[in-house]
Structures are given as structure tokens and as C-alpha cells.
């Protein structure tokens, strides 16, 4: 153990202390495989759902998927549509006449003995995805990552290695699932750019609704090409999540730096090789001497993918605005959201167990905002317009929904944006306090849940306010209020504190007194009124 630790410290700077060294320039490119979320597989009518069918191996397999003799591929054009969307979103040139090719190699989970992919004439090329400091959190103001090409191809099956029994189980549910392989140019120079790109790419495919975008399920798989100071390129594989990707790059960077410093680069870094990530180190999988000749050939029975010249424009028109564009809209007039809040309305979560997706939330927010803004009109400064919608939707409502496990899509049938704007107006006009508003909203949501969001139900805030007797008391008799304050001062039985407040020694503690007052009045009396009254009662001079 001691030896290991010493080894770790002296030879490898720890990954947690990682930094790039200026004299060793890192150059990276990414190869990202993305499973397309089409209904059916790329070349058969089998259901495309490899992740959820993991417990039923070989359930979604047609005769073609298991490569029975005499079967033939039939192209699923939904995959072509999805690829077109991605190509457009990545600013690529779409190839109007691309073709499928066969890539030959033996593997147990590849029943045809070859993969149908695009090699000689891929689907799209010459794209780019810009990264920005503001939006994506990279160090530079902006950085353009160039996309070399996109190709459509089929996924392999899955091998499950049972080491103890010395057998391998094969599940072909994934065999023939459509994939897009995207290859970037080696434009990445640091880890921040890589992290930002992967995140942005994940969000993009979710935004386009072409993939779940999850690394955890293998819907997205990232390989890294890396070189230092233009030595030979190393390909890193088996990187199941973002932290493996980043740690593997760090480890490999440090490994190569050490080789260069030891003067061994000519020997050890002159030939490209492929390395895998074990979780703690990279290990050589194969070098040039064992390179497979894939014997690419055009597939002789699949027709070429020929697109009419207006297809790209037609598809472009059906596409939602890009996430960057939506984000920029939200942080500008009239919304003026903070970047953090705007991202909540724009970014996809992984979709597992969430009570909303960003699109319904965004729509709900915008509709509520406009309804509210219309009614507020001139009564508010423009830069304050989004304060209530943001606080009450992004912070309060989402919190309540999570607490109640209530999906947003269900409640909006009853709690429509216009009605939510009514609610915001109650707070805007000071008819109820914020504290009462919180209770009221939670009560309304809870009732919705109990009534299963019956679409016929209506929400009458006014009568609820009366029922709970929480309407703000605007016209309170000064004498009455002073009496209440006097009562509070007496009930806390802390003469020293009271004296300190009165003398100005502990000015802030007056907030404590106000709080007691708010509690007592259940928020119906405004805090400012309480503060004024306490100061009067204590004869505060400060």
C-alpha cells in the first residue's frame, strides 16, 4: 500500500491536481456515437428500445437483426430525417447522395460479420458547433469546434461476459439500432472545452428529440483522439461517462508528458495506438501492428440515400430555434432572466423521474409571463418584470411539484398560465403576502393532486383567500398595531435584547421582532408596517 502511494506521488501528479503544462500542447478530437430514438431499427421493423428491454434479451430481434440467411435490409427513413436535423443543427453540409458501406470484422455480437455504415460517401460534413464563455462556461470568449463528418450506421448487439462460467451471453436487442457517428476536428485544447462540448451536444440531441442523449445508458458514447505536441495520435475508448472521459484524458496527458520528459517519445509515441480506460489508468488495446483491415465495400443492395435539394430547407423550417438562440432570447428584453434561470428553461434534464421537461416549462413560463406583463402594464419597471414569474415558477412551483411528485403537464390543464398570472397579480398587488402565497399555492397543487387534476375543476383564488382569511390587511389602525407590537415585546421576555435594539447596538435584531409579528399575523400585515410600529413603540432614534 505504501509503495503504491509513493509511486502515485512521485511519478504521477494526482489527477485531482491536474493542470495543463504550457510547453506540452494538448490536441483532442472527439468521436461521438449517438443512438437515434426512432421507433424502429435502422434496417428492420423491430422496436428500437435496447435500454428498457435489457431484462428481455433478444426480444426485439427480426430475422434481419440476427442475420438469418436470405434476409435483406430495408432502410428506415425516420433515421435519415433525424440525421438531417442533427446535420442542420451542427451547421453541416448535407450530402444529397450518400451511400451505405460494409465494414467487416468478426465479433460475437455483430451477427452479419460486418457493420453497415457510411465510409466512402458519408451523410454530412464540414459542420461546426460554437462554444461561448457565457453560455457554456469555457475559458475563452468563444471557441468554434469543427465537425468533420456525420455518418449513419447500425449499432452492434451487446456481449455480457460471464467470467466465472467462461461464457459470453449475446443480446441482440441493440443489433441494428440506428447510430450517428460524429467526428470532430482535433480542435479541443483543454478539458473545459471538451466538457462544455459534450454537455452542449447532449442538450442539442435532446432538444432535437432525436436521442435520449444519456451517457449512462450508452445512448451516447464518446471516444477521444488525443496527441501532445503533435506526437502520434492515441485513441481512448471505453469511456462510460463524463468523469471517465476527463480522467482518462488527464491520465493519458500525464503519461505522455512523462514519456516525452524521459526522452522516450520517438520510441513510444511514434505510432498511433488505441487505449482503453480501466477506471484508474489507460491500457493499450491495440497498436498499428494489429490494425484491422476493415475491407470496406459499398453495400450492394441498399439503395443510395438520395435527397431532393429542397429537403434540407423543408426540414430546417420544422425545427425549433437552437438552444443558444432561446437562451439569448430569455436573457434579453423583455425577459431579462439570469443565465442560470434561463438555462433551467432551456436545458434538458436526462428525463428520468423529472416532473417536467424544459419545453413545457419554457412554454408555461412564457405564457404566464406575457399574461402577467400584459396586466401589470406600466405599473412596474421593465427590469423587474420577470421577478415574480421567475421566483414563483422556477423556484416555488417546481419545488412544490417535486415535493408532491406531480407532473407539470398534468396541472397546467387546470392551472393554466392565465390563472397562474392571476395568482401573481395577487402578490403583485399585495393582496396576499409572499408567505401566504406559498401556502396558498401548495394548497392548490395538493388539491389538484387529490382530485387527479380534474380538467373541469376551476381555481378560485379569491374565495380561497377569504376561506383561509389570509388577505393582507392594508388599512390597519396604528394604535391597534402598536398594541400588538407591545404584546410581542413583552412576550419575548428579553430585556437586554430590547434595550440593544432600542439603543441601536443591535439594529438588525429588529428583524427578529418583525418576524414574530409576521408569524402572529400569518403574514397578513406587511413587514414594513410592523418595523415602523416597533420603532415607534421602542422609541428608536437610529
Amino acid at each position: 500500500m505504501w509503495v503504491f502511494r509513493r509511486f502515485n506521488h512521485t511519478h504521477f501528479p494526482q489527477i485531482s491536481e491536474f493542470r495543463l503544462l504550457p510547453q506540452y500542447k494538448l490536441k483532442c478530437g472527439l468521436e461521438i456515437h449517438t443512438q437515434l430514438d426512432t421507433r424502429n431499427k435502422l434496417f428492420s421493423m423491430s422496436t428500437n428500445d435496447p435500454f428498457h428491454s435489457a431484462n428481455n434479451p433478444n426480444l426485439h430481434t427480426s430475422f434481419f437483426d440476427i442475420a438469418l440467411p436470405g434476409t435483406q435490409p430495408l432502410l428506415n427513413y425516420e433515421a435519415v430525417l433525424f440525421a438531417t436535423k442533427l446535420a442542420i443543427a451542427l451547421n453541416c453540409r448535407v450530402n444529397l447522395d450518400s451511400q451505405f458501406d460494409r465494414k467487416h470484422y468478426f465479433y460475437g455480437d455483430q451477427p452479419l460479420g460486418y457493420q453497415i455504415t457510411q465510409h466512402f460517401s458519408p451523410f454530412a460534413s464540414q459542420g461546426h458547433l460554437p462554444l461561448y464563455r457565457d453560455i457554456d462556461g469555457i475559458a475563452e470568449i468563444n471557441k468554434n469546434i469543427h465537425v468533420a463528418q456525420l455518418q449513419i450506421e447500425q449499432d452492434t448487439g451487446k456481449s455480457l461476459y460471464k467470467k466465472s462460467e467462461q461464457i459470453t451471453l449475446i443480446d441482440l436487442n441493440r443489433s441494428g439500432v440506428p447510430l450517428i457517428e460524429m467526428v470532430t476536428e482535433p480542435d479541443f485544447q483543454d478539458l473545459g472545452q471538451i466538457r462544455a462540448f459534450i454537455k452542449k451536444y447532449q442538450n442539442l440531441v435532446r432538444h432535437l428529440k432525436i436521442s435520449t442523449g444519456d451517457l449512462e445508458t450508452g445512448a451516447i458514447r464518446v471516444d477521444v483522439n488525443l496527441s501532445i505536441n503533435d506526437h502520434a495520435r492515441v485513441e481512448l475508448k471505453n469511456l462510460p461517462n463524463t468523469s471517465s472521459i476527463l480522467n482518462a484524458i488527464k491520465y493519458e496527458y500525464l503519461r505522455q508528458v512523462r514519456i516525452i520528459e524521459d526522452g522516450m517519445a520517438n520510441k513510444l509515441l511514434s505510432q498511433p495506438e488505441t487505449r482503453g480506460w480501466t477506471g484508474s489508468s489507460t491500457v493499450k488495446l491495440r497498436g498499428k501492428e494489429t490494425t484491422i483491415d476493415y475491407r470496406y465495400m459499398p453495400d450492394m443492395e441498399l439503395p443510395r440515400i438520395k435527397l431532393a435539394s429542397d429537403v434540407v430547407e423543408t426540414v430546417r423550417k420544422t425545427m425549433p430555434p437552437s438552444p443558444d438562440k432561446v437562451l439569448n432570447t430569455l436573457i434579453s428584453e423583455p425577459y431579462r432572466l439570469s443565465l442560470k434561470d434561463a438555462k433551467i428553461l432551456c436545458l434538458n434534464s436526462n428525463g428520468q423521474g423529472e416532473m417536467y421537461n424544459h419545453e413545457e416549462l419554457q412554454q408555461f413560463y412564457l405564457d404566464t409571463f406575457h399574461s402577467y406583463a400584459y396586466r401589470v402594464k406600466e405599473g412596474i419597471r421593465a427590469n423587474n418584470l420577470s421577478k415574480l414569474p421567475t421566483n414563483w415558477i422556477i423556484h416555488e412551483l417546481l419545488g412544490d411539484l417535486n415535493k408532491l411528485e406531480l407532473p407539470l403537464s398534468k396541472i397546467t390543464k387546470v392551472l393554466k398560465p392565465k390563472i397562474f398570472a392571476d395568482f401573481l397579480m395577487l402578490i403583485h398587488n399585495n393582496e396576499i403576502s409572499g408567505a401566504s402565497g406559498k401556502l396558498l399555492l401548495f394548497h392548490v397543487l395538493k388539491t389538484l393532486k387529490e382530485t387527479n387534476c380534474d380538467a373541469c375543476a376551476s381555481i378560485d383564488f379569491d374565495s380561497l383567500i377569504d376561506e383561509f382569511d389570509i388577505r393582507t390587511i392594508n388599512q390597519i389602525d396604528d394604535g391597534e398595531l402598536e398594541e400588538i407590537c407591545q404584546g410581542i415585546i413583552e412576550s419575548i421576555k428579553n430585556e437586554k435584547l430590547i434595550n440593544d435594539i432600542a439603543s441601536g447596538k443591535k439594529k438588525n435584531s429588529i428583524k427578529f421582532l418583525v418576524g414574530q409579528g409576521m408569524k402572529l399575523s400569518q403574514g397578513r400585515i406587511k413587514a414594513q408596517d410592523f418595523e415602523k410600529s416597533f420603532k415607534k413603540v421602542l422609541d428608536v432614534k437610529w
Partner: protein
Amino acid sequence: MSSKAALKRIQLIPELQKKYNIFTHIENSVAEKVLPDDSNDSNAPLSHLVTGIKDNIVTYDMPTTCGSKILLDYISPFDATCVKLLRDAGALLVGKTNLDEFGMGSAGTHSHFGPVRNPLFPNENVVAGGSSSGSAAAVAAGAVDFALGTDTGGSVRLPAAYTSILGFKPSYGRISRYGVIAYAQSLDTVGILAKDLSLLRKVFRVLDKYDEKDPTSLDNELRAAISNRCIKRNTYKIGIPREFIQGSLTKELAKELTEPLSNFLKKLLQQGHELYPVSIPSTKFALPIYFTISPAEAASNLARYDGIRYGTRSEKNDLEDGTFFSSTRDAFGQVVKDRLVLGNYSLCSETFKDSYIRAQKLRVKIIDEFDSIFRFPNLLTGSEGNAYGLDLILGLTNDGLPQSIDYYNEKKISSPTNEYKNDIFVTPMSLAGLPVISFPLLKGKPLGIQIAGQYGDDSTVLDACSLLVDRDN
């Protein structure tokens, strides 16, 4: 046809099988399926017709072996589209016919089930031609009324010529390939073998249908466009390409041929047809093109027979001498192995451009040359057709007489290319996907004449055949 005739054929089968090794599988229960003559279903277009299916076309109720050890017990869970169409039309499937393994061979000698013997020579061991050897022998021996074969580079026409029957290879894409086990699917075409042309046409009408399951099936739009352009003629402009006659004829054949061939050509002229000498220069590359493209496709298609799901597997290791599943793939016969090596060589990154790509370019050139001599347009390539062009081309099917089985066993050892040469006259039409039929020059003689038309113009080929054959016999 009557139920009596069908039963008579079925009863002959065991005896014929013993003599000629026609089938890889015989369906014993088929006699029970023969419907009485007065049954309602006996009006189906092919009812009471007995047929054999080449054993590289899948059937759900009989094994499909491709004549290979590796698929010895394989039973497909589905029927090929062409098989289903035959069943629906009332045909009686008596069994699966023997073949050169995976369709690779031109003599019918490379089957795991042993060579097929030619029924034209009942007392000798003469090859029946390949690779649809069993289908040709079944028809020639009278075991069936017609048989299905596949023609990748002559595999229907050559055995038809050797057994003196009709062998029709339609245009590529006319008959569905769904369920046809691929050898080289840019060339693979289902064909029909029969003695009687009107029967052959009846079978073709049943099979000549678009199939959405086959991505290379000729679609209905093109079918309609082609038939709109078809013109029925009584006399034809027929070209005789010098490349199909010159050179490689053996002396004995040339001597034997001269008289009947010139008689046949004289008859054509008497019938009012016009004959023209033509040249299709690129067809002299047809053999090398064919033996580059087809093994490359085969190497790819046969990659799936990996020992995990087919054949047997080494107990020790899947990887031997750096090769995956070498013991499994040892189950392939020598011809298949040769072609897999050849095909993989053509696909290697270093040789790909010089072999495979060059062959594809030359293949396009052959198609262009065919387009330039035919009057009928090629609706696939967009060629409008030559207004002064030909309706048909005519040539020999075989450049030699069928040899003894022993001859192939000996020759095989010296060089596989000796056998490749048999395909010299039949591969050009395969490369261009043309419709072509081979018919016997003389009844009962193993000499075939083939006539081919432009792509899609199958009806002209069949119409012409009925004029030429019927008047000749």
C-alpha cells in the same frame, strides 16, 4: 395438368434421385398434397405442377443447406417470397435441388451432397452444369415440371444448356430475392428451368412481382414504365456479338456446331429476322470483372457463418493462427474457400482500388456498351435507346460440351480458373442484369443458344424465344 400426371412424376423421384443425385432433400409427404382434379383449388395457375427449389432458396418446411456442410441442418423460419408465390399458385414442392456450394461453380460438382449427374447421359458420369445443377437435372430427367434456380454468372443457363432444356434468367430485380441466400447479390437472380416455354412463361407470370421486402426489387412504377414502352414484333433485329463466338471454342465443338448453327441462322433469316454482326468490346473483360466482384460480395455475405450460430466450433479456441473460427470455416468446400480468399484480397485496403473499383468501372462500361446497341431504352440507367439499334443479341451459352465428373476432379487440382472459363459467354448479361434465355440448339443435345434483350425487356426475349424455338423444333 392433371393430378395423375403429378403423381406419376412424384413416384419417379426416388429412382431418379438414385441415378442422378438431383435433390438434397425430398419432401415425402408431397403426394398427399396432390388435389383431386375436380377440387376448387385445382384452378390455381400452377396446380398439379411439380417443382423443385434450388437449395439456396429458403423454405420453412424443408432444410436449406446451400449444398454446404456449414448449413447442414439449417431450417429457415420463413419462406422466400418466390417460394410463397409458387405455393399460393398451387405448385407442388417436391424437394430442394442440389447445387454447387452457395452457388459457386459451373459444373455441379462442388456440393457437400456430391455431384449431380447429367440425365442426358444416363449411362455415363457427365456433369449437369452448375450451379443450378439439381434444378436442371430434375427438369431434364422428368422429376419435375419446372424448377427454380439462381443465376449469378450463368448458373441457370449453363446447366440448362448442358441438359438441353430451357433456362431463363429474367432482368435483375424482376423476381424477389427475399429468401434467396446471397452469394453476390448485385448479380444474384432467380431463374426458371423447364422444358416447355409456355409453362415457363406461366411460372414467370406468377413470380414477376414487386416485393417490398427486397430493396433491389424492381418497383411498380418502373415495371409500368417498361411495359408502356414494350412493342410486340413479329420479326427482330438480332445482333451476334463476335466476342460470344470467337476464340475459345474447342475444335471438336466448332466442327460439330458449324452445320446446325448455320442452319439455325438461315432459318432466322427465312423467318424475316435481320441479323447483324456486332461487337461489345468490354465483354472480353466480363470474366475478370465477374471473378473480382462476385467473390468480393461472397466474402462479405458469408462472413456471418462464424461458428457462433452455424456449423461446429472448436472446443479449444475461436482464434487459431490469428484467424477467427478457422475450424468452423473449414467446413466450406475448396471452391468456396478459394473465392473467399480471392474476395477478401480484392477488398483489402491496398488492392481495393485496383481490383474492386476497377472492376466496377468496367462493369459500368459493359452496361454502357449494351445500352448503345439496344433499341429499347434502359430505364434504370436512363439510356434512351439507339433508334437504329437491336432488339436482341444472340450467342452460344456454352463454349464446350459437358465433361465427365472425373475431369473436374482432376482439373480442379491444377487450377480453379479452368472451371471459371465455362462462364465466358454467360457472365456479360449477368453483369448488366439483362433478361436472357438459353434454349437447346438441337433437341437432346447439350448445346445452348442464348438470346438476351435490353434490361427490363423480358417479354421480347420470351416472345422471340417462342418464335425461334417453336418453329425450329
